[in-house]
């Protein structure tokens, strides 16, 4: 890169230091100042990530923006080493973008400990950017684990009635997975003498070792994705988390696990990944189909969207382990799209919850009569959630199914059931909540969305439609990286 401005550094540290600044505004008597500062920091945090896209060189698969590589802990040969390629670019932008929405979404809803709430999200945003930008195994791990702390606090402190259980369950599940990751990283260090991810990607590894490392990766990232059968923490966490927490959880936190698969599992242990890919595909299909049915049975809106997230993420892991360019690229697009759509769905549910303080589908009915503008937005996002052509959800799912078709007809066939199931649970919920006669006087008393809510829903609607109608700008930076990755995996590491 020609530029010497360390954009990645800024993307990480602007939100973190800004979060500390927000924390310094102190008690709730200064709540307004905390909100304003948080919004400014979030916008600034997004602004510094924009050049990552505009100056991104889409013609290469090499790491870009590698301004930062300096020794961090020399004793263990650990470097503070940042860089991004087509696989990670979008997640940093998405993360910075979602942070703005979260700050706005919490503007009025959060009335207690405002500064701490805002600071937790900003710090979390910076840490997550660190995960996507880290090119050193330990640096990645450190950000990966540290990002648990703010999310734990957000769920536990501002969540629903059963929040403490959900927060601890969330923390312990992911911690258990990531500690196995730590052992895998230490093992790789002992083999290669380095913690550099790029070195690991080139280092030869025997098949037996690859198998064990793959297992550790599968558990660590599978819990985070989450894959069936280790998904049970997610519905709890989602239901109890405040709206902002759910948004970040669905839009960004789940992507961390999937990102781990493309950054670690596939390139570092390609032979084991290929060997065990059918098992991962099977788990993914279970997630898509079985979890789709589970979603159908939910009576709580948030839980329903949580299960739908698991099904969608099952689609993502499916795409990755097809190991062809269509599958991987489709999965990446699906992740970005899911970032927009799930964020929008949770924000919509948040809009309803703020007014009615209930997430039960049965408490609603006929919302369209009292909140027409809201109903229109909700409709769009529900359609995107079941992958209607023209919305962002379609692009990813369709590409993955095309990729699956190349792999095997039956995998594609089973995967395609999601189109039916997704439509069934999403639209059925939509129908019960929004259509029909006004169910009770509380629904009758609802007020339509205000300026603030209109703003964030409209922005997301634009994103969803833009990506659905003209996906080229989104997929263009990925091409080279995805192709290089697929070639690398197919070539393998065994002699």
């Amino acid at each position: 890169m020609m530029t010497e401005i360390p954009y990645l550094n800024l993307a990480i540290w602007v939100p973190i230091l800004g979060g500390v600044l927000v924390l310094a505004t102190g008690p709730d008597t200064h709540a307004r100042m905390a909100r304003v500062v948080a919004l400014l920091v979030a916008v600034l945090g997004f602004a510094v990530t924009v050049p990552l896209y505009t100056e991104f060189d889409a013609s290469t698969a090499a790491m870009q923006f590698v301004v930062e590589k300096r020794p961090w802990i020399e004793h263990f040969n650990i470097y503070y080493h940042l860089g991004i390629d087509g696989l990670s670019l979008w997640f940093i932008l998405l993360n910075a973008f979602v942070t703005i929405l979260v700050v706005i979404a919490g503007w009025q809803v959060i009335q207690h400990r405002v500064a701490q709430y805002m600071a937790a999200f900003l710090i979390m945003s910076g840490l997550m950017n660190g995960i996507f930008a880290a090119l050193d195994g330990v640096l990645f791990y450190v950000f990966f684990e540290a990002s648990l702390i703010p999310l734990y606090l957000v769920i536990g402190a501002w969540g629903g009635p059963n929040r403490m259980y959900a927060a601890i369950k969330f923390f312990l599940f992911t911690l258990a997975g990531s500690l196995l990751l730590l052992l895998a990283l230490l093992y790789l260090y002992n083999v290669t003498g380095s913690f550099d991810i790029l070195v690991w990607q080139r280092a030869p590894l025997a098949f037996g070792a690859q198998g064990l490392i793959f297992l550790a990766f599968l558990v660590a990232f599978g819990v985070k994705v989450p894959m069936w059968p280790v998904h049970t923490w997610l519905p709890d966490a989602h239901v109890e988390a405040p709206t902002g927490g759910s948004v970040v959880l669905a839009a960004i936190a789940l992507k961390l696990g999937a990102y781990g698969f493309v950054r670690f599992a596939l390139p570092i242990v390609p032979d084991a990944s290929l060997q065990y890919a059918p098992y991962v595909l099977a788990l993914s299909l279970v997630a898509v189909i079985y979890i789709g049915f589970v979603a159908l049975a939910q009576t709580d809106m948030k839980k329903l969207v949580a299960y739908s997230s698991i099904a969608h993420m099952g689609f993502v892991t499916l795409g990755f382990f097809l190991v062809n360019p269509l599958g991987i690229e489709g999965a990446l697009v699906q992740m970005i799209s899911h970032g927009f759509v799930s964020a929008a769905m949770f924000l919509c549910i948040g809009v309803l919850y703020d007014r009615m303080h209930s997430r039960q589908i049965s408490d609603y009915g006929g919302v369209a009569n009292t909140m027409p503008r809201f109903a229109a937005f909700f409709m769009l996002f529900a359609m995107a959630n079941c992958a209607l052509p023209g919305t962002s959800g379609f692009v990813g799912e369709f590409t993955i199914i095309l990729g699956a078709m190349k792999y095997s007809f039956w995998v594609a066939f089973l995967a395609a059931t999601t189109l039916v199931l997704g439509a069934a649970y999403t639209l059925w919920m939509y129908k019960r909540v929004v259509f029909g006669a006004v169910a009770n006087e509380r629904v009758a008393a609802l007020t339509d969305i205000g300026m603030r809510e209109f703003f964030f829903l409209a922005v997301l609607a634009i994103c969803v439609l833009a990506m659905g109608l003209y996906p080229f700008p989104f997929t263009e930076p990925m091409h080279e990286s995805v192709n290089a990755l697929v070639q690398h995996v197919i070539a393998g590491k065994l002699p």
Partner: protein
Amino acid sequence: MNFDANYFYPVTAEIFVALMVLAIMLATAFARGIARGLAYALTQLTLVVAALMTLAALHGEPGTATNLFADETGSFINMFVQDRLGGVLKFAVYCTMMVALLYGRDYLAARRLDRPEFFLLALLATLGMMVMITANHLLVLYIGLEMMSLALYALVAFDRDSTRSTEAGMKYFVLGAVASGLLLYGMSMIYGATGTLDLPAVSQAVASQTDKREVLLFGLVFLVAGVSFKLGVVPFHMWVPDVYQGAPTAVTLIVSSAPKIAAFAFALRLLVGGLSGLAAHWQTMLMLVAAASIVLGNVAALAQRNIKRMLAYSGISHMGFMLLGLLSGIVEGKSGLTNDAYASAMFYAISYALMTLAAFGMVVLLSRSGFEAEDIEDFKGLNRRSPWFALMMLFVMFSMAGIPFFVGFFAKFAVLEAAVAAGYLWLAVLAVVMSVIGAFYYLRVVKLMYFEEPDVNAPLAAPPELQVLLSVNGLAIAVLGLMPGGLLHACGAAIEALHLGS
């Protein structure tokens, strides 16, 4: 023997502390009115001066591990070593003691326990630790250990009107005396087999001679038992929770922090310095001890309602983790592990001292006159009462759980790295699984502080110097977590200067 002032050079700090103990005793006897304040001030002054002396020695002899008494005569000769390891560890002990005494001072004053003897005993314990750290001879090691232990027994029972305190002291004394007996018995076996008490000579004898193996191994078992007792690891851990809980919190602060550093030094000097020829045997024993400690410490801590007991069990598991580093140094067929492994254990011991100081410092902070903040429930809603100190306790708890960016993560990272490098994958997996269990009880404290409302809304009534130092302590945990390189380097250099395995 011709007298040479240089003979005393390695032990100037020890001699100085010993003389100061006597001076403070006399001074407080004569200055009755201000005895309490005077004893405290002089004790801190002594520690500061000793720290400066150690630093100067460290600076003057960079990296030399040679003992200055290579010639062979006289009783004082070869008893002590002057090396980087000793310098760094002694410095850590002074700092730990200074902080512990400062944290405890107001607590003691509120309970009329700040008698001059308290500070004298603390200083004597420090002297014992210093001797343990610099000893180069089995008997000197033993003397140092006893000097520390006897002072600590008395400190634990210092609140003589409290039955719990005296009971804890009694228990500690009886069990500690048994452990000392075991240790001495083991040493006599080593002496019987090798004919010397001098550690380098023992090391040479163990390496060269092939007969009397049984005697050596027999002695080794007792030595490992004694070391395990002092570290407080399973199965010699029974005293830890009772002593931590029974002792006044100001004493728990002392017992739980600096002696662990000294015990690490003791284990290193004895097992690595003297008996590395038997490493295959003591490493196997330590492996079992470490595994049992990590499991029992974490599982038992889950069930505790009393924060001091919880921290005691957590300390047992932490010492188990530290042993992971100590037992990964020498593996047949693998070279180059030694330095990293012992450096990781040293880093663990020092960072554990830092964390446990902050943890018990918080307990002191929350207690007021006539009220002991001993229940975990007392941390309820701390975020409401004081967001700043809730944040500091959050740092401590996440650090102990081994979550980055806190120093505890890199401590665990380093010892796990050592265990994986040595090929003890099963131990590493066990340790990792147990850390997940351990995370639960640390998270519970965070949960109480952040997710629940306080029962009492009394503002924290601790003196400003305690609040400032505790903040510094908490921030140090975070800063060392962001930049552990310096301390890791210091530990690495100290171990390297020992020229092990060369």
